[in-house]
């Protein structure tokens, strides 16, 4: 995915969107990160895309299922059977 090794021209938007995860995972080299952040600072389109991606990720962190009462009963029965008596 990363082919550039020579002296790099500034990022374009099409490349930027492919680096978002590497950036958030802190997997970019210092030079790559500087290039990413420079583009982020000057491109409104990419800044918007980036912010939306962060919102998607943050929102994903809120969609867990609620605990299930029936499973709770099963668990507590097992706890009583297996551990309760000792």
């Amino acid at each position, binding site marked *: *995915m990363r082919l550039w090794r020579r002296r790099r021209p500034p990022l*374009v*938007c*099409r*490349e930027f*969107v*492919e680096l*978002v*995860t*590497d950036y958030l*995972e802190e*997997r970019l080299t210092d030079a790559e990160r500087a290039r990413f952040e420079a583009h982020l600072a000057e*491109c*409104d*389109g*990419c800044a*918007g*895309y980036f*912010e*939306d*991606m962060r*919102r*998607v*990720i*943050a*929102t*994903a*962190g*809120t*969609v*867990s*299922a*609620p*605990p*299930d009462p*029936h*499973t*709770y009963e*099963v*668990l*507590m029965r*097992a*706890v*009583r059977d*297996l*551990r*309760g008596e*000792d």
Partner: protein
Amino acid sequence: MHDEPSLIRRLRAGDQEAFEALFSRYDGSLRRVATSFVRTPTAVEEVVQETWLALVKGLDGFEGRSSLQTWLFQILVNRARSRAVRDARQIDFSSLQDDDSPAVEPTAFGGDGRWRSAPSRLEFDPESRLLSAELRSELVTAIDGLPTQQRVVVTLRDVIGLTAEEVCEMLELTEVNQRVLLHRGRSRLRRELGPFSNEAPR
């Protein structure tokens, strides 16, 4: 869990409150992850119950080399994978599924690689700074609709909040492949939530 050794002591002693705390904290998450592996509510139910039972039985042998949370999810992932195999839904992470579609469809960019027009923004709730309620429910559907490998990785990383390291270990994935799947999955979620251009509605 701040004081794990003491929590584990309480669990081993059969302390109901300790189990209750653990249950309310993790049952929903386990359910979400199970859903990313197996597709029927019955299978989800079974896998999650088996996980809790395995925890109760395995507590004495738990050596605390990983955190309780990692251990719990590892049990779940193992159960869910073998259940998926039984249901003839092989979930294999040894090679990546063939999906290298770009994060954003190429037509959104001009010949110079720049956006043709600034991409449309997703609606969000200014107070929570999260996506709007409507998009949030679309997000749940979109996660369920991801290709299997991406769905599992996005669920473990972004829904549950496990670290890259934990997920690599659980799924026996290389660090690079984990990141590729996460990137493809997240990008696909963004695409599913709305077109980038108002001019070309999907």
